[in-house]
């Protein structure tokens, strides 16, 4: 178990985060955007757990639990917005929601 080093775990987190971020930059589907945010949150959680495992402390896992709670809250609100989005804009393209442009 000890042979996994901290930076490998952190690099995994960074890669996952980067993929999620790339998806966020590219995809226009609101649901996928939400999923990308989930990926990034999860990657952040992974970094917390890895850092906690470095010191053998529970704090990292505790932080992951808070990330989990936040993700739950985010999904609830995000999906509610997606439903209204679909009703009012007849689609899921986030680029359609540019009425607040300057």
């Amino acid at each position, binding site marked *: *178990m*000890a*042979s*996994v*080093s901290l*930076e*490998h*775990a*952190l690099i*995994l987190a*960074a890669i*996952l985060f980067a*993929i*999620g*971020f*790339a998806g966020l*930059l*590219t*995809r226009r*589907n609101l*649901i*996928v955007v*939400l*999923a*990308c945010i*989930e990926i990034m949150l*999860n990657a952040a959680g*992974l970094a917390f*757990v*890895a850092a*906690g*495992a*470095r*010191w*053998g*402390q*529970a704090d*990292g*896992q*505790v932080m*992951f*639990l*808070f990330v*989990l*709670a936040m*993700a*739950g*809250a*985010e*999904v*609830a*609100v995000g999906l*509610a917005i997606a*439903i*209204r989005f*679909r009703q009012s804009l*007849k*689609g*899921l393209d986030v*680029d359609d929601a540019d009425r607040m442009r300057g």
Partner: protein
Amino acid sequence: MTILFYIAAAVAVLATLLVVTRRNLVHALLYLVVSLFAVAVVFYTLGAPFVAALEVIVYAGAIMMLFVFAVMLLNLQAASPPRVPWTAWVGPAVLVGVLLAEVIYALTIETQPLAGAEVGATAVSEALYGPYVLAVELASMLLLAALVAATHVAARAREDQTAASVERGRAVLHGQGTASEPGVIVEEGDA
């Protein structure tokens, strides 16, 4: 355990890549479930079995289920925007590549081994309800707020009802109706 970590990591990365590239919403979400499952295995290899279980139960089991449910129930697949051309990936890929390179460079400056000890459910719980208890309360409030907000945003019928009751209150105020219930709002100016 080490080999398991790398296998799971590879699966996670691959599945996540598929999440952001698939056009079929349900397929993408299923790959996300796979990715989360792989991350759960990673957690287990990092000595965090409790969080690994929660990752599956809450993330894969509940949160992603909610996603899938919403997509299926509202047939969101049909509302998906058109496919992006592959050229759209170039810019983000470069940006993210630079970011990743920086992070990896920063991370590999020095190597740190893991403690290697398993941190079980008891230790996590004790930390959670010990020094972090205030944060737990805050998290519960966040969830409550999210619940209220989601209900409010998603329920359109309710909104019309509220508008109607405000309208009725106005009518009462201007003497065109009767206050059928106590607690009718009286406006500032009339006091």
